[in-house]
């Protein structure tokens, strides 16, 4: 697919007006205010907290609003070891999050079970919910989380929310 620049701006002609596509405007708004659902389950949550604190300052990426209600969150950061018992709660919270939603698997445990090759630990949260970004590390440093967040932002830029909405609407007419 041919990708042209999503934004056209010429200060001499247009003054304070920017021409863009609604898809890219929506993407721009979405990616710059990702409200995370902090699914802190183990030591990764400590690094997640550090990423939210002043030194690393996740607010630079518009993701500082940690929401403890799934109804208000956009991205679930699964930070830590997911035991089978906890996996039920994680899945439930994921289901309660409204679309559009994304998921970051932070650290080795959330990505693959990590060092816990055990009867009690889910071997990667991707067995239950779709994951957009995996972050390696045990635990990953806050920089790694920020890098993962920036990757997610880049991924969101490539989405076509309105086009997809239209396609779904047309499909519902045809059905």
């Amino acid at each position, binding site marked *: 697919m041919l990708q042209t620049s999503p934004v056209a701006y010429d200060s001499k002609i247009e003054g304070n007006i920017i021409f863009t596509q609604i898809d890219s405007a929506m993407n721009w708004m979405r990616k710059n205010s990702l409200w995370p659902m902090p699914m802190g389950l183990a030591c990764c949550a400590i690094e997640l907290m550090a990423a939210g604190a002043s030194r690393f300052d996740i607010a630079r990426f518009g993701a500082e609003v940690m929401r403890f209600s799934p109804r208000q969150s956009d991205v679930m950061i699964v930070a830590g070891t997911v035991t089978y018992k906890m996996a039920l709660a994680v899945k439930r919270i994921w289901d309660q999050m409204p679309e559009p939603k994304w998921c970051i698997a932070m650290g080795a445990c959330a990505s693959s079970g990590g060092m816990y090759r*055990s009867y009690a630990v889910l*071997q990667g949260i991707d067995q239950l919910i779709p994951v957009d970004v995996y972050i390696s590390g045990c635990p990953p440093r806050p920089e790694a989380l920020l890098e993962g967040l920036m990757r997610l932002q880049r991924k969101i830029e490539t989405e076509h929310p309105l086009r997809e909405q239209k396609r779904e609407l047309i499909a519902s007419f045809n059905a």
Partner: protein
Amino acid sequence: MAAASLNSVVSAIQAKFQVAQKTEFRGETTLTVERTEIKDLCAFCKDTLGFAMLLDLSGVDNFGTEPRFEVVYELYQMDTDAHLRLKIAVSEDALEVPSVITIWPTADWHEREAFDMYGITFTGHPDLRRILMWEGYPFFPLRKDFPLAGRASDMPDVAFSKAAPLAGGPFVTVPSTATTKDREPRSREQS
């Protein structure tokens, strides 16, 4: 001081209850007692001998021996700093132990854990549910015949589990007097 008071404690217990075996190891006293008497003995230990605190209650699986299971009670007397361990043997055919929750309320979650991991039923426990695994999980994972990787289990729409991939594992220490190299957790795949 603690040792002197513990001797009188042991003789007081021996005068009233059956003690199958008394073990001394590194200053720790262990009494193996009868399963049917454990509740009366625990009440005696708390009310008369002053063991106000139950430090721990745990199960043990001695797989391959009969009786297979053990339940261990760790008692503590705060005034004299005395520590006493009680053990009862539990056979696999009669996996029932009287609960001591009425004596020490802290036994609640300990007994639930022993039930969850070994399947030992504590009669008289008011709320004997699983505590670590989810409700309806079909296995008792700390039994020695249960593989570390786990077994696949399935509960539609609620929960599932699969055997974990153990590439070259399980990575566990081997109890022996050999060198660290032989004891440490490492891949021991025989292939």
